[in-house]
Protein backbone atom coordinates (compact mmCIF):
# COMPACT_ATOMS: atom_id res chain seq x y z
CA UNK A 1 0.00 0.00 0.00
CA UNK A 2 1.30 3.42 -0.90
CA UNK A 3 1.93 5.90 1.86
CA UNK A 4 2.66 9.57 2.34
CA UNK A 5 5.19 11.16 4.66
CA UNK A 6 3.45 12.90 7.55
CA UNK A 7 5.28 15.45 9.73
CA UNK A 8 3.56 17.25 12.57
CA UNK A 9 5.78 20.08 13.77
CA UNK A 10 5.28 22.48 16.68
CA UNK A 11 7.66 25.26 17.75
CA UNK A 12 9.00 23.01 20.49
CA UNK A 13 9.44 19.73 18.73
CA UNK A 14 8.53 17.40 15.93
CA UNK A 15 5.58 15.48 17.32
CA UNK A 16 5.03 12.96 14.56
CA UNK A 17 7.16 11.95 11.63
CA UNK A 18 6.08 8.76 9.89
CA UNK A 19 4.63 7.13 6.82
CA UNK A 20 0.84 7.31 6.92
CA UNK A 21 -1.71 5.66 4.69
CA UNK A 22 -4.36 8.27 5.25
CA UNK A 23 -4.75 11.50 7.20
CA UNK A 24 -7.95 13.31 8.18
CA UNK A 25 -7.59 16.96 9.20
CA UNK A 26 -9.93 19.51 10.77
CA UNK A 27 -9.77 22.22 8.10
CA UNK A 28 -11.37 25.61 8.70
CA UNK A 29 -13.86 24.89 5.94
CA UNK A 30 -14.63 21.39 7.10
CA UNK A 31 -12.88 18.14 7.72
CA UNK A 32 -10.95 16.67 4.84
CA UNK A 33 -8.96 13.56 4.15
CA UNK A 34 -5.60 13.28 2.44
CA UNK A 35 -4.49 10.13 0.68
CA UNK A 36 -1.11 9.41 -0.88
CA UNK A 37 -0.35 11.29 -4.12
CA UNK A 38 -2.67 14.11 -3.12
CA UNK A 39 -2.50 17.27 -5.17
CA UNK A 40 -0.54 20.18 -3.62
CA UNK A 41 -2.64 21.80 -0.94
CA UNK A 42 -2.30 24.53 1.63
CA UNK A 43 -5.04 24.77 4.20
CA UNK A 44 -5.62 26.44 7.52
CA UNK A 45 -6.67 24.19 10.37
CA UNK A 46 -8.92 24.81 13.31
CA UNK A 47 -8.74 23.41 16.80
CA UNK A 48 -9.70 19.78 16.78
CA UNK A 49 -8.76 16.20 16.20
CA UNK A 50 -6.50 14.91 13.47
CA UNK A 51 -6.64 11.26 12.58
CA UNK A 52 -4.06 9.30 10.68
CA UNK A 53 -3.79 5.66 9.74
CA UNK A 54 -0.45 3.97 9.90
CA UNK A 55 0.18 0.25 9.71
CA UNK A 56 -3.56 -0.36 9.53
CA UNK A 57 -4.15 1.34 12.87
CA UNK A 58 -5.89 4.65 13.50
CA UNK A 59 -4.11 7.18 15.68
CA UNK A 60 -5.51 10.45 17.01
CA UNK A 61 -3.79 13.76 17.54
CA UNK A 62 -4.95 16.96 19.13
CA UNK A 63 -4.16 20.03 17.01
CA UNK A 64 -4.65 23.59 18.17
CA UNK A 65 -4.95 25.49 14.95
CA UNK A 66 -2.15 26.05 12.48
CA UNK A 67 -1.99 24.98 8.89
CA UNK A 68 -1.10 22.08 6.68
CA UNK A 69 0.99 21.91 3.57
CA UNK A 70 0.82 18.97 1.18
CA UNK A 71 3.39 18.82 -1.57
CA UNK A 72 5.20 16.01 -3.36
CA UNK A 73 3.59 13.35 -1.23
CA UNK A 74 4.90 15.03 1.93
CA UNK A 75 2.37 16.40 4.35
CA UNK A 76 3.59 18.93 6.89
CA UNK A 77 1.34 20.12 9.69
CA UNK A 78 2.52 23.26 11.46
CA UNK A 79 0.61 23.71 14.68
CA UNK A 80 1.20 25.79 17.76
CA UNK A 81 0.61 22.75 19.86
CA UNK A 82 -0.06 19.13 19.04
CA UNK A 83 -0.43 16.14 21.32
CA UNK A 84 -0.92 12.46 20.78
CA UNK A 85 -4.05 11.08 22.38
CA UNK A 86 -1.97 9.20 24.95
CA UNK A 87 0.01 12.31 25.92
CA UNK A 88 -2.99 14.48 26.73
CA UNK A 89 -3.17 15.61 30.33
CA UNK A 90 -6.86 14.96 31.00
CA UNK A 91 -6.84 16.44 34.50
CA UNK A 92 -5.40 19.67 33.20
CA UNK A 93 -7.82 19.80 30.30
CA UNK A 94 -10.70 19.17 32.69
CA UNK A 95 -9.75 22.07 34.96
CA UNK A 96 -9.14 24.27 31.91
CA UNK A 97 -12.61 23.42 30.70
CA UNK A 98 -14.25 24.25 34.01
CA UNK A 99 -12.33 27.51 34.23
CA UNK A 100 -13.32 28.51 30.71
CA UNK A 101 -16.97 27.63 31.35
CA UNK A 102 -16.96 29.70 34.50
CA UNK A 103 -15.49 32.65 32.66
CA UNK A 104 -18.04 32.43 29.90
CA UNK A 105 -20.86 32.17 32.42
CA UNK A 106 -19.57 35.20 34.29
CA UNK A 107 -19.55 37.20 31.07
CA UNK A 108 -15.84 37.82 31.14
CA UNK A 109 -14.52 40.66 28.96
CA UNK A 110 -12.23 38.27 27.21
CA UNK A 111 -14.98 36.05 25.87
CA UNK A 112 -13.09 35.18 22.69
CA UNK A 113 -10.13 33.84 24.60
CA UNK A 114 -12.32 31.93 26.98
CA UNK A 115 -14.19 30.40 24.10
CA UNK A 116 -10.96 29.34 22.42
CA UNK A 117 -9.76 27.84 25.69
CA UNK A 118 -13.04 26.01 26.05
CA UNK A 119 -12.92 24.53 22.58
CA UNK A 120 -9.32 23.49 23.10
CA UNK A 121 -10.04 21.73 26.36
CA UNK A 122 -13.22 20.09 25.08
CA UNK A 123 -11.53 18.64 22.03
CA UNK A 124 -8.54 17.53 24.11
CA UNK A 125 -10.90 15.63 26.41
CA UNK A 126 -12.79 14.23 23.47
CA UNK A 127 -9.63 12.85 21.87
CA UNK A 128 -8.27 11.46 25.09
CA UNK A 129 -11.36 9.30 25.46
Amino acid at each position, binding site marked *: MSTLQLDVIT*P*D*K*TVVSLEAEMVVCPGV*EGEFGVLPQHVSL*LSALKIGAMRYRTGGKDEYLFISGGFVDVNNNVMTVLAESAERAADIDTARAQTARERAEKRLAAGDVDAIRAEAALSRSVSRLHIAR
Partner: protein
Amino acid sequence: MPSLKDVKMKIVGVGKTKQITKAMNMVASAKLRSAQSRIERFRPYAAKYRQVLAELSRKMEGNAHPLLAEHEEKKNCAIVMITSDRGLCGSFNGNITSQAFRLAKEKTYAGMSVSFACVGRKGWDAARKAGYTMMTSYADRMGNSIDFALASSVAAEAIHGYETLAFDEVWLVYGEFVSMGHLPPRTICLLPLKAPKVEDSPQTSGEVRCEYIYEPKEEKLFVELLPRYVRVQVYCGMLDTSASEHAARMAAMDNATRNCNELINSLTLLYNKTRQASITSELIDIVGGAEALSG
Protein backbone atom coordinates in the same frame (compact mmCIF):
# COMPACT_ATOMS: atom_id res chain seq x y z
CA MET B 1 55.64 43.74 52.38
CA PRO B 2 52.47 41.81 53.18
CA SER B 3 52.65 39.32 56.00
CA LEU B 4 52.86 35.63 55.25
CA LYS B 5 49.41 35.04 56.68
CA ASP B 6 47.81 37.73 54.52
CA VAL B 7 49.17 36.19 51.36
CA LYS B 8 48.03 32.75 52.42
CA MET B 9 44.51 34.06 53.06
CA LYS B 10 44.44 35.76 49.67
CA ILE B 11 45.45 32.54 47.91
CA VAL B 12 42.64 30.65 49.66
CA GLY B 13 40.18 33.39 48.73
CA VAL B 14 41.11 33.39 45.05
CA GLY B 15 40.93 29.59 45.06
CA LYS B 16 37.33 29.77 46.25
CA THR B 17 36.42 32.31 43.59
CA LYS B 18 37.92 29.96 41.05
CA GLN B 19 35.71 27.14 42.23
CA ILE B 20 32.64 29.32 41.76
CA THR B 21 33.60 30.49 38.28
CA LYS B 22 34.38 26.94 37.29
CA ALA B 23 31.00 25.75 38.53
CA MET B 24 29.24 28.58 36.70
CA ASN B 25 31.07 27.63 33.56
CA MET B 26 29.80 24.08 33.82
CA VAL B 27 26.24 25.17 34.57
CA ALA B 28 26.33 27.51 31.58
CA SER B 29 27.59 24.78 29.30
CA ALA B 30 24.79 22.45 30.40
CA LYS B 31 22.20 25.18 29.83
CA LEU B 32 23.75 26.03 26.50
CA ARG B 33 23.27 22.48 25.37
CA SER B 34 19.57 22.53 26.19
CA ALA B 35 19.13 25.96 24.60
CA GLN B 36 20.87 24.74 21.47
CA SER B 37 18.66 21.70 21.25
CA ARG B 38 15.61 23.97 21.52
CA ILE B 39 16.91 25.96 18.56
CA GLU B 40 17.43 22.73 16.68
CA ARG B 41 13.87 21.64 17.39
CA PHE B 42 12.46 24.98 16.35
CA ARG B 43 14.42 25.18 13.12
CA PRO B 44 12.22 22.82 11.05
CA TYR B 45 9.13 24.81 12.07
CA ALA B 46 10.68 28.14 11.12
CA ALA B 47 12.08 26.81 7.86
CA LYS B 48 8.78 25.33 6.79
CA TYR B 49 6.93 28.47 7.77
CA ARG B 50 9.26 30.60 5.72
CA GLN B 51 8.91 28.29 2.75
CA VAL B 52 5.13 28.21 2.84
CA LEU B 53 4.85 31.96 3.28
CA ALA B 54 7.32 32.58 0.46
CA GLU B 55 5.28 30.35 -1.81
CA LEU B 56 2.14 32.19 -0.83
CA SER B 57 3.56 35.69 -1.11
CA ARG B 58 4.69 35.00 -4.68
CA LYS B 59 1.04 34.91 -5.56
CA MET B 60 0.15 38.09 -3.72
CA GLU B 61 0.32 41.63 -4.97
CA GLY B 62 2.73 44.10 -3.33
CA ASN B 63 0.92 45.58 -0.36
CA ALA B 64 -1.68 42.95 0.18
CA HIS B 65 -1.61 43.25 3.94
CA PRO B 66 -1.48 46.24 6.31
CA LEU B 67 1.56 44.72 8.01
CA LEU B 68 3.48 44.77 4.73
CA ALA B 69 2.65 48.38 3.94
CA GLU B 70 5.02 51.13 4.98
CA HIS B 71 3.42 54.01 6.77
CA GLU B 72 3.81 57.24 4.83
CA GLU B 73 4.44 59.43 7.83
CA LYS B 74 7.01 58.02 10.20
CA LYS B 75 6.74 59.44 13.67
CA ASN B 76 6.96 56.64 16.17
CA CYS B 77 9.38 53.81 16.34
CA ALA B 78 9.36 50.89 18.74
CA ILE B 79 12.40 48.79 19.52
CA VAL B 80 11.97 45.33 20.95
CA MET B 81 15.17 44.47 22.76
CA ILE B 82 15.88 40.94 23.89
CA THR B 83 18.64 40.54 26.47
CA SER B 84 19.39 38.18 29.31
CA ASP B 85 18.06 38.52 32.84
CA ARG B 86 21.37 38.05 34.57
CA GLY B 87 24.80 39.49 34.19
CA LEU B 88 28.21 37.84 34.53
CA CYS B 89 28.32 37.10 30.85
CA GLY B 90 30.97 39.50 29.64
CA SER B 91 29.99 42.21 27.21
CA PHE B 92 27.03 40.24 25.86
CA ASN B 93 24.22 42.46 27.15
CA GLY B 94 26.29 45.59 26.63
CA ASN B 95 26.70 44.78 22.96
CA ILE B 96 22.98 44.31 22.45
CA THR B 97 21.97 47.43 24.34
CA SER B 98 24.56 49.62 22.65
CA GLN B 99 23.41 48.38 19.26
CA ALA B 100 19.82 49.14 20.22
CA PHE B 101 20.72 52.60 21.51
CA ARG B 102 22.63 53.36 18.33
CA LEU B 103 19.52 52.45 16.36
CA ALA B 104 17.42 54.57 18.70
CA LYS B 105 19.69 57.53 18.11
CA GLU B 106 19.48 57.13 14.35
CA LYS B 107 15.72 57.07 14.57
CA THR B 108 15.66 60.12 16.81
CA TYR B 109 17.78 62.02 14.29
CA ALA B 110 15.31 61.00 11.63
CA GLY B 111 12.65 62.74 13.68
CA MET B 112 10.96 59.76 15.24
CA SER B 113 10.17 59.24 18.89
CA VAL B 114 11.51 55.96 20.12
CA SER B 115 10.03 53.68 22.74
CA PHE B 116 11.38 50.42 24.07
CA ALA B 117 9.85 47.07 24.87
CA CYS B 118 12.25 44.79 26.67
CA VAL B 119 12.47 41.09 27.20
CA GLY B 120 15.05 40.41 29.87
CA ARG B 121 15.94 42.43 32.95
CA LYS B 122 19.33 43.72 31.80
CA GLY B 123 17.99 45.47 28.73
CA TRP B 124 15.13 46.95 30.73
CA ASP B 125 17.50 48.38 33.33
CA ALA B 126 19.81 49.85 30.70
CA ALA B 127 17.06 51.45 28.65
CA ARG B 128 15.40 52.93 31.72
CA LYS B 129 18.67 54.36 32.92
CA ALA B 130 19.30 55.88 29.51
CA GLY B 131 15.98 57.68 29.85
CA TYR B 132 14.05 56.14 26.97
CA THR B 133 10.30 55.83 26.92
CA MET B 134 9.47 52.36 28.15
CA MET B 135 6.46 50.38 27.05
CA THR B 136 6.45 46.92 28.49
CA SER B 137 8.93 44.64 30.04
CA TYR B 138 9.01 40.91 30.29
CA ALA B 139 11.70 40.59 32.92
CA ASP B 140 12.70 37.32 34.52
CA ARG B 141 11.31 35.35 31.64
CA MET B 142 14.49 34.40 29.84
CA GLY B 143 16.07 31.03 30.26
CA ASN B 144 13.95 27.93 30.32
CA SER B 145 10.65 29.70 30.74
CA ILE B 146 10.63 31.30 27.30
CA ASP B 147 7.92 29.75 25.24
CA PHE B 148 5.91 30.44 22.15
CA ALA B 149 3.17 32.08 24.21
CA LEU B 150 5.61 34.75 25.40
CA ALA B 151 6.75 35.39 21.85
CA SER B 152 3.12 35.60 20.82
CA SER B 153 2.28 38.26 23.37
CA VAL B 154 5.30 40.34 22.40
CA ALA B 155 4.39 40.02 18.73
CA ALA B 156 0.73 40.74 19.39
CA GLU B 157 1.66 44.00 21.07
CA ALA B 158 3.84 45.04 18.15
CA ILE B 159 1.19 44.14 15.61
CA HIS B 160 -1.53 45.91 17.52
CA GLY B 161 0.61 49.04 17.75
CA TYR B 162 1.40 48.93 14.06
CA GLU B 163 -2.18 48.44 13.00
CA THR B 164 -3.52 51.21 15.21
CA LEU B 165 -0.79 53.50 13.85
CA ALA B 166 0.79 53.86 17.28
CA PHE B 167 4.08 52.73 15.76
CA ASP B 168 5.32 53.29 12.25
CA GLU B 169 8.28 50.97 12.56
CA VAL B 170 9.11 48.10 14.87
CA TRP B 171 12.64 46.81 15.20
CA LEU B 172 13.94 43.74 16.95
CA VAL B 173 17.41 43.68 18.52
CA TYR B 174 18.75 40.43 19.90
CA GLY B 175 21.91 38.39 20.26
CA GLU B 176 22.38 36.04 17.39
CA PHE B 177 23.95 32.67 17.97
CA VAL B 178 26.29 32.01 15.09
CA SER B 179 28.83 29.82 16.81
CA MET B 180 30.36 29.44 20.26
CA GLY B 181 32.84 32.23 19.69
CA HIS B 182 30.75 34.46 17.49
CA LEU B 183 27.70 36.07 19.12
CA PRO B 184 27.00 39.32 17.31
CA PRO B 185 24.04 41.52 18.24
CA ARG B 186 21.59 41.57 15.40
CA THR B 187 18.97 44.07 14.33
CA ILE B 188 16.04 43.18 12.12
CA CYS B 189 13.07 45.18 11.00
CA LEU B 190 10.01 43.43 12.38
CA LEU B 191 7.38 45.75 10.94
CA PRO B 192 6.69 46.69 8.19
CA LEU B 193 7.11 43.03 7.51
CA LYS B 194 9.14 41.83 4.60
CA ALA B 195 7.64 38.66 3.26
CA PRO B 196 10.29 35.97 2.80
CA LYS B 197 11.38 35.39 -0.76
CA VAL B 198 11.73 32.11 -2.52
CA GLU B 199 15.35 31.43 -3.24
CA ASP B 200 15.33 30.60 -6.88
CA SER B 201 18.23 28.25 -7.11
CA PRO B 202 18.54 26.61 -10.50
CA GLN B 203 17.41 23.38 -8.94
CA THR B 204 14.04 24.61 -7.76
CA SER B 205 13.30 26.79 -10.77
CA GLY B 206 13.96 23.84 -13.06
CA GLU B 207 11.31 21.87 -11.26
CA VAL B 208 7.80 22.04 -12.51
CA ARG B 209 5.84 23.97 -9.95
CA CYS B 210 2.46 22.47 -9.54
CA GLU B 211 -0.43 24.69 -8.65
CA TYR B 212 -1.56 24.63 -5.07
CA ILE B 213 -5.08 24.28 -3.85
CA TYR B 214 -5.74 26.89 -1.21
CA GLU B 215 -8.32 26.52 1.46
CA PRO B 216 -9.61 29.10 2.30
CA LYS B 217 -8.67 31.54 -0.47
CA GLU B 218 -5.07 32.76 -0.82
CA GLU B 219 -5.87 36.23 0.46
CA LYS B 220 -7.57 34.97 3.57
CA LEU B 221 -4.83 32.46 4.27
CA PHE B 222 -2.19 35.12 3.79
CA VAL B 223 -3.90 37.46 6.23
CA GLU B 224 -4.06 34.59 8.71
CA LEU B 225 -0.46 33.48 8.36
CA LEU B 226 1.38 36.75 8.07
CA PRO B 227 0.94 38.02 11.65
CA ARG B 228 2.06 34.65 12.92
CA TYR B 229 5.30 35.04 11.05
CA VAL B 230 6.12 37.96 13.37
CA ARG B 231 5.80 35.55 16.28
CA VAL B 232 8.10 33.08 14.60
CA GLN B 233 10.70 35.81 14.22
CA VAL B 234 10.37 36.97 17.81
CA TYR B 235 10.57 33.44 19.13
CA CYS B 236 13.60 32.82 16.98
CA GLY B 237 15.23 35.91 18.50
CA MET B 238 14.44 34.74 22.01
CA LEU B 239 15.87 31.29 21.50
CA ASP B 240 19.00 32.73 19.91
CA THR B 241 19.49 35.24 22.70
CA SER B 242 19.10 32.59 25.36
CA ALA B 243 21.63 30.30 23.67
CA SER B 244 24.14 33.07 23.11
CA GLU B 245 23.72 34.28 26.68
CA HIS B 246 24.89 30.91 27.93
CA ALA B 247 27.69 30.78 25.40
CA ALA B 248 28.83 34.25 26.45
CA ARG B 249 28.69 33.29 30.10
CA MET B 250 30.71 30.18 29.40
CA ALA B 251 33.42 32.22 27.73
CA ALA B 252 33.38 34.83 30.48
CA MET B 253 33.64 32.23 33.21
CA ASP B 254 36.39 30.42 31.36
CA ASN B 255 38.33 33.67 31.27
CA ALA B 256 37.67 34.28 34.93
CA THR B 257 38.92 30.82 35.86
CA ARG B 258 42.05 31.39 33.83
CA ASN B 259 42.61 34.74 35.52
CA CYS B 260 42.19 33.08 38.91
CA ASN B 261 44.89 30.57 37.99
CA GLU B 262 47.24 33.36 36.99
CA LEU B 263 46.51 35.23 40.18
CA ILE B 264 47.13 32.14 42.27
CA ASN B 265 50.44 31.59 40.52
CA SER B 266 51.66 35.10 41.14
CA LEU B 267 50.40 35.04 44.72
CA THR B 268 52.19 31.75 45.35
CA LEU B 269 55.36 33.32 44.04
CA LEU B 270 54.84 36.25 46.38
CA TYR B 271 54.16 33.86 49.24
CA ASN B 272 57.39 31.97 48.63
CA LYS B 273 59.36 35.18 48.31
CA THR B 274 57.93 36.52 51.55
CA ARG B 275 58.69 33.27 53.32
CA GLN B 276 62.22 33.24 51.98
CA ALA B 277 62.71 36.86 53.00
CA SER B 278 61.60 36.12 56.55
CA ILE B 279 63.90 33.10 56.73
CA THR B 280 66.80 35.17 55.45
CA SER B 281 66.18 37.93 57.91
CA GLU B 282 65.98 35.40 60.76
CA LEU B 283 69.24 33.80 59.63
CA ILE B 284 70.90 37.21 59.58
CA ASP B 285 69.67 37.76 63.11
CA ILE B 286 71.00 34.42 64.31
CA VAL B 287 74.35 34.85 62.57
CA GLY B 288 74.60 38.40 63.87
CA GLY B 289 73.86 37.18 67.42
CA ALA B 290 76.43 34.38 67.20
CA GLU B 291 79.04 36.84 65.90
CA ALA B 292 78.30 39.14 68.82
CA LEU B 293 78.69 36.29 71.34
CA SER B 294 81.93 34.92 69.94
CA GLY B 295 83.28 38.43 69.42
